[in-house]
């Protein structure tokens, strides 16, 4: 009935700021800071190398049959990879809620869709130039996050999840009803091509959209890193581990959670903006509860509470969703009964079933599992 996060959500709002006193035990830096710093630099090497490789991909004219459609730097592959990266970044923003602060939200789609739709609407309906349109989209999404977060945080745990779900559903209904022809209903709202730079438009310019998506992932990564290492980030971890204890220690848990919601939503809205630019418009699928659920699945698949986990989960999920359709045509499946093939032709069935398996057997996600395997083989 009462989950661990059900207590005392709004009792200490006025006592201390999130980064206030009372967390002397949680200071990140241990003695021997110099060695620590060098170690940290060393650990950043794989990420930097990976980033360099990813940034170089548009210059690779190799074909990878079965894995990517056509050449790596062909428009099909570039678009697929760009979509994977954007969704990976959005999963990273969702992890600020779920993995970092322990808030189970079913309404993240609301903020992503807000970013996406506010961008397309302010570009075409309000005829704003691109930089202003991006600012407007981000500012309004942040206000939205503050309002929704403030209301939803009045309850904790499972009830919070349901309330955020309801808000997202309301947004989904509004978008579908197409008030004043602003959201485009089921068709979605296409991006106004004249309002964005030529580099981001057209099939031939897919690599530029890919780099844009990559930039978004880097921004999200850096923001999450800075947040996690800040005092507020430590307070979030404290709330996640034991909210009652955190609030007894004098942390303003309400403010900590609201901060997490605002930062996560802002990143999500930025993801929505990039999503609209990369995919050339806003799609009502972004507003649905299925989208939020798929974000949750991505984060848990990859590993909640870790940057690699959320990112890898988002990229893999999007990739699998796009490419698993091919599985049903695979030769080894042709002997199976029709019903089985029909079911396996649905990527979401495979992903959903796989997700359940991961929840059971790899609670720390694929990256956690990988890390464990590496450590085990190292100790042998």
């Amino acid at each position, binding site marked *: *009935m*009462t*989950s661990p996060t*059900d207590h005392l959500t*709004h009792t200490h709002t006025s006592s201390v700021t999130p980064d206030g006193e009372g967390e002397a035990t949680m200071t990140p830096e241990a003695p021997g800071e110099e060695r620590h710093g060098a170690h940290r630099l060393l650990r950043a090497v794989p990420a930097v190398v990976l980033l360099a490789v990813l940034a170089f991909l548009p210059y690779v004219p190799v074909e990878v049959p079965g894995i990517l459609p056509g050449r790596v730097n062909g428009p099909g592959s570039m678009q697929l990879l760009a979509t994977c990266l954007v969704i990976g970044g959005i999963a990273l923003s969702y992890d600020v809620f779920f993995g970092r602060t322990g808030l*189970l939200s079913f309404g993240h789609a609301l903020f992503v869709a807000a970013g996406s739709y506010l961008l397309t609407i302010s570009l075409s309906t309000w005829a704003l130039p691109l930089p202003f349109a991006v600012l407007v989209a981000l500012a309004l999404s942040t206000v939205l996050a503050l309002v929704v977060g403030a*209301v*939803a945080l*009045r*309850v904790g*745990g*499972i*009830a919070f*999840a*349901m*309330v955020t*779900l*309801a*808000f997202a*559903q*309301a947004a989904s*209904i*509004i978008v579908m*009803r197409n008030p004043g022809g602003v959201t485009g209903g089921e068709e979605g709202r296409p991006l106004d091509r004249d309002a964005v730079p030529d580099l981001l438009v057209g099939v031939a310019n897919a690599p530029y959209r890919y780099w844009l998506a990559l930039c978004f992932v880097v921004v999200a990564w850096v923001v999450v890193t800075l947040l996690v290492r800040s005092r507020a980030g430590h307070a979030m971890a404290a709330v996640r581990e034991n909210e009652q204890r955190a609030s007894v220690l004098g942390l303003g848990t309400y403010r900590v959670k609201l901060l997490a919601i605002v930062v996560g939503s802002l990143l999500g809205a930025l993801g929505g903006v990039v999503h609209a630019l990369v995919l050339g418009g806003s799609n009502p699928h972004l507003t649905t*509860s*299925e989208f939020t*659920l*798929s974000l*949750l*699945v991505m984060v*848990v698949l990859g590993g909640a509470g870790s940057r690699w986990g959320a990112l890898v989960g988002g990229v893999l999920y999007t990739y699998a969703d796009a490419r698993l359709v091919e599985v049903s045509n695979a030769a080894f499946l042709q002997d199976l009964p029709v*019903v089985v093939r*029909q*079911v*396996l*032709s*649905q*990527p*979401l*069935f495979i*992903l*959903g*079933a796989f*997700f*359940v398996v991961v*929840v*059971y057997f790899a*609670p720390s996600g694929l990256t956690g599992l990988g890390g464990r395997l590496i450590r085990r083989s190292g100790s042998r």
Partner: protein
Amino acid sequence: MSDLVLLLVTGVGLGALYFIAASGLSLIYGLMGVLNFAHGVFMTAGAYAAWLTMGALPDGWPVAARLVVGVLVAVAVGAVVGLVVEVVLIRPLYRHHIQQVLVTVGLSLAGVAAAQGIWGADPRPVERPEWMSGTTDILGARLPNDRFVYLLVAVALFAGLLALLHLTRLGLVIRAGVENRTMVEALGINVHRTFTTVFALGGAAAGLAGVLYSQYAGAVSPAQGGSLLIFAFIVVVIGGMGSLTGTAVAAVVVGLVQQLANYYAASGVGDLSVVLLLALVLLLRPTSLKGAMA
């Protein structure tokens, strides 16, 4: 006047559907603390089971008789699905509420996808008994007959569940388990078996809701359960997370608000006003959501 009567009756009828969908959720949440996202899949399973049964029965039978058999099959299928899900998937994760929610989320994705793969994403029309498609004149309003059926079923379900909770030993264990599960276990009662029963019960109610909703919509489709589920969630939250009487009252209020707003404001405002109602309840009475069994 006749408009108002029509709106009130259709609103209460819709509320009855919401109650049938939400009662299982509320029971399960109240006792086990599991937010069952797979409830929508249970509903879809019930709807498809009834649709298949009605198609398989000989055409010579009257539609109403086939529908009754279909409802019985749907309830049975819902109960079996609930039972299996509880024993296989939920039971190993007791006391891990978030993981339980995650498993049911995965199940809801996979279940909808499976139904889509087998029967296609498009809605399939269902047969309705002639009487249920007709109307009755009361106070000058032409009232659709099917709403009375939903209302009757909902009242029977409500009365049955209340009787179960207050008159039987199982109900006693459930109510005690909601109060203090640890104490019930300490007294030597196997709460886990009660969990399984409650899940099967919730699944049966979901199967029932699935059939009735497919009758209401005139078709079965894979995503149907999910759309009903969101309103069921809202009803459960407004009703106080696990209180059966609260759920019933909330269901009627939500149904009425939705119908009235849809008619007097604009089409589509009804769904929004329900969400607004939820926000209002949260702002005014956040403590009412702690959970209690009536």
